[in-house]
């Protein structure tokens, strides 16, 4: 390869920024001004010196295949503004001919390559007997937690939901804490959710009953897991909160298109969860890759929307086969500007319904809708089939509405678009949109995905 790889877009770079301040600071460094000694290699790394306020310029290197970053600046943000600036510069103008990395950059890149090689080497066999004992102990604790939760639910239904509006949040917090003690974080999270429903507005008793019923279903499934088919049993284990290991699962190699990436922060603000949706371009399978960031740090894994990476994905058992971990990568990510094929509103709901068979606790299912027309409305937005009467309500709650929906409307201009999002019983959450090439008179053919954030 003599050609430098295809550059990313500014949006794709800015999507990596850990916060608004970094986005802005990085943007300022995205011009040639402060940079010198810049270069890039055909194998997917870029580097450069950035002049700061001190005498020594900062040395910034980005490995695009990760992407991973290193910089001699003291910032604890990740990536730092220099890495963002360098990527923006590269995105806007390129960095000249591909070249050999200079020593200061090559050293770090070599270390990364070494580590990657070490990672793919088989891990030392763990003490199987000790692990089995640990698992048994934990299963015992969870069992006790489940039994207690069942009692709690029965008490609730015996006395009636009507008192819940006054009961407040505290009762459920306490039960959630018990589930944490029982090492069942999945149950704890669901219990905490229960506590928020009585204050969620009209129709809450119905929603409360639904969630109680599904929680009860999960309890019963755990207690009877021995009798369940293995995939369903695995789903139950993950839903309760036992980590499902991807070890041993077959790796699926494909060219994975990044459909969406978004973060959510836990209620206490201590954990950032990043969800990355992928779709295999060959096998058409969807994958959800998750990464976590401790307080004040964004998750490390970042895959800008619209890139395609050739990699192996190892699917974890259970959860309707969505959760995956990325394994070996075979090439640096490259842009892909064709929208994936979309389906109708009815077909999307059918897919969700089918997926419920494998995981009855699924709140939503990833689908590409299209061509659809966004219909803004005061009481709620819809996405309607371009050639029919069917529509999906857009879920606007949860703070993910606003700007993204307007971008969606702007892209459509009242015409059809292709939209990726999460389709479920509470509505459709649009995450990414592509303009659809239909009107010959307007040159729409950009085909770039737009993240609806």
């Amino acid at each position, binding site marked *: 390869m003599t050609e430098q790889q295809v550059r990313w*877009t*500014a*949006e794709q770079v*800015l999507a990596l920024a850990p916060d608004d301040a970094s*986005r*802005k600071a990085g*943007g*300022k460094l995205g*011009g*040639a*001004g402060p940079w010198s000694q810049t270069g890039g290699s055909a194998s997917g790394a870029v580097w450069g010196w950035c*002049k700061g306020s001190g*005498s020594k310029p900062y040395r910034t290197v980005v490995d695009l295949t990760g992407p991973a970053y290193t910089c001699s600046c003291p910032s604890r943000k990740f990536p730092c503004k220099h890495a963002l600036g360098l990527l923006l510069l590269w995105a*806007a103008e390129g960095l000249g001919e591909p070249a050999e990395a200079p020593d200061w950059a090559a050293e770090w890149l070599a270390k990364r390559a070494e580590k990657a090689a070490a990672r793919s080497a088989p891990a030392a066999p763990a003490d199987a007997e000790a692990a089995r004992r640990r698992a048994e102990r934990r299963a015992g604790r969870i069992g006790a937690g489940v039994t207690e939760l069942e009692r709690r*639910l*029965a008490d*609730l*239904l*015996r*006395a*009636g*939901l*009507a008192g819940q509006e006054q009961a407040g949040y505290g009762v459920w917090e306490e039960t959630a804490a018990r589930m944490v003690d029982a090492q069942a974080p999945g149950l704890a999270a669901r219990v905490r959710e229960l506590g928020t429903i009585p204050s969620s*507005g*009209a129709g809450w008793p*119905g929603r*409360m*009953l*639904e969630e*109680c*019923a*599904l929680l*009860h279903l999960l309890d019963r499934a755990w207690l009877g897991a021995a009798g369940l088919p293995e995939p369903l049993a695995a789903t139950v284990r993950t839903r309760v909160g036992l980590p499902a290991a991807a070890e041993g699962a077959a790796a699926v190699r494909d060219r994975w298109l990044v459909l969406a990436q978004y973060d959510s922060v836990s209620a206490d603000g201590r954990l950032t969860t990043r969800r990355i949706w992928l779709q295999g371009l060959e096998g058409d399978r969807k994958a959800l890759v998750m990464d976590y960031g401790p307080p004040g740090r964004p998750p490390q894994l970042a895959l800008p929307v619209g890139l395609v990476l050739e990699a192996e994905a190892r699917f974890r058992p259970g959860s309707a086969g969505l959760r995956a971990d990325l394994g070996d990568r075979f090439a640096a990510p490259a842009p892909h500007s064709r929208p994936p094929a979309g389906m109708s*509103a*009815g077909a999307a*709901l059918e897919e*969700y*319904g*089918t997926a419920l068979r494998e995981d*009855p606790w699924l709140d939503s299912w990833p689908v590409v809708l299209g061509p659809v027309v966004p*219909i803004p409305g005061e009481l*709620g937005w819809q996405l*309607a*089939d371009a050639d029919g*009467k069917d*529509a*999906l*309500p857009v879920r606007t709650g949860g703070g993910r509405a606003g700007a993204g929906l307007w*971008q969606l409307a*702007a892209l459509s*201009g*009242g015409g059809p678009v292709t939209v990726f999002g999460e389709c479920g*019983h509470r*509505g459709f959450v649009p995450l990414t949109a592509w303009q659809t090439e239909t*009107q010959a*008179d307007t*040159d729409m053919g*950009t085909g*770039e995905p*737009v993240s609806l954030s």
Partner: protein
Amino acid sequence: MNGYGDGYGDWEELVGTALLGTDRRQGGTPEALLDAAAVQALRRRAGLRPAEAGPRPEPAAPDPRPEPPEPARRRLAQLLAGRAGAGGGRRGSAPDLTELLPQWLAAAARHGYRAPAAQLPALLDAARARTDLRPQALALAGPRGHWLARLNPDWRFALRSGAGGAELPDPGDREGVARLWEEGLFAERVALLGAVRAAQPAAALALLSTTWATERAEDRLMFLDSLRAGLSQQDEPFLERALGDRSRNVRAVAAELLSALPGSALAGRMAERALACVGPEGVTPPAECDQGMERDGVVRRPPAGRGERAWWLGQLVEAAPLACWRDRFGGLGPAEIVAVPVAEGWAEELHAAWCRAAVRQRNPEWSKALLGAATDPPAAGPGTASLAERAKLLETLTQEERAAWVAEFIRAHGLSEAFQLLGVCAVPWAGELGRAVVDALEAARDAGSYPWSFSGVMGLAERCLDPAEAGRLEAVAAERRPEPAEAEAAAGAEAYWAEAFQRLVATLRMRAAMLTELTAPA
């Protein structure tokens, strides 16, 4: 509540039981209730049907303009992202993206691009926050921006401005124009009048005449103001009638417009009055303000602190056609007339009035005479020492003349007073002017000043210098860039200048890149 169409059977009964509690209903355990509810909930989720689509929005009118090329789209996204949360503090050496946005918009408009659809919400938000961006942002946003603005109350300003063109009828569409003129909101009518005036000055006048008598005074004032564009002798009869308007402000604007038409009857009457007061023999201000003068727009009562007679004199001279002075002064040209000594302290009053007349009548010859040589010390100039007035006089000159005059001014007097004058020069600055500014900045640095004393000019230079100057500037900046070790030790003005020059160079380079991206073939 979920927005889907269907309800489902005995679910309501289950909810009713759950609300009351199984203790209060016979024949059922909580477990049985939960089992039944789980089945129902899953059945409902698995069997969800699509909702019926609501009324679709009318599609946006097509915009035949192309989207900008990809690198330019990226740049816009970057500029709009840089807009968010502008922080205070020292500016550092990086370009100020907020200041480049207007240039990007202007350049994109010159090339006939439309705004990238995905950027429309950010663009409208930017225009909402900054009124100065609105005309350009809305023009670029085009019909789709207008369509979008109708859906979101936050962007209602875009509908008021009348830009986007979708709402205004074609000026040739008589019926449409007449209907909007009769039924439109005030802002729409102002926009309509402006559009018609631009296309066909006489038609605008005719339109205005149809309803003139019934308009409110403040509306008459605004409408009259739209006649400034394309003002011609044809407007005289209408304006002459407006001199008899009930509203004093309307009368004043009518008189001002007439006096800007040197051939008008009002200009003739004012010339007659002015010539009686001013001549080579000296100045005799009017003794009274008669009714005729008042009808021609002369304001009788002076503002506090000014003498009546001087006040009247100023108004007469300001409104008299400048051509009338040649004969009165025995065939002298403007420069010579301005140089004639004026006795008894009337000089300031007279010259100020001539300045206003030169601006109003857009007379470059008189403007040049009143500006004098750029090398003259400002206080000793023939016409005016006021920089604001000088800037206005400069605006009557051609772009080349302006640049040359301001360049000379800067070479002679430095930058400290040049800010307003630079503001009226064409962007990017002409080569000579740009070099004068860079030289003056260099001189200021060498003289030991601090760059923030010149932050205004620096900011202008970032926006207005020809990007082609970047190379030369870099040489200037590099020439004195201190050794790293030295800079650490002497964190004085030098380091700040280095930073300021660096930012200037970086900004120019970014502007150059911006413009290249926008011209590159799609």
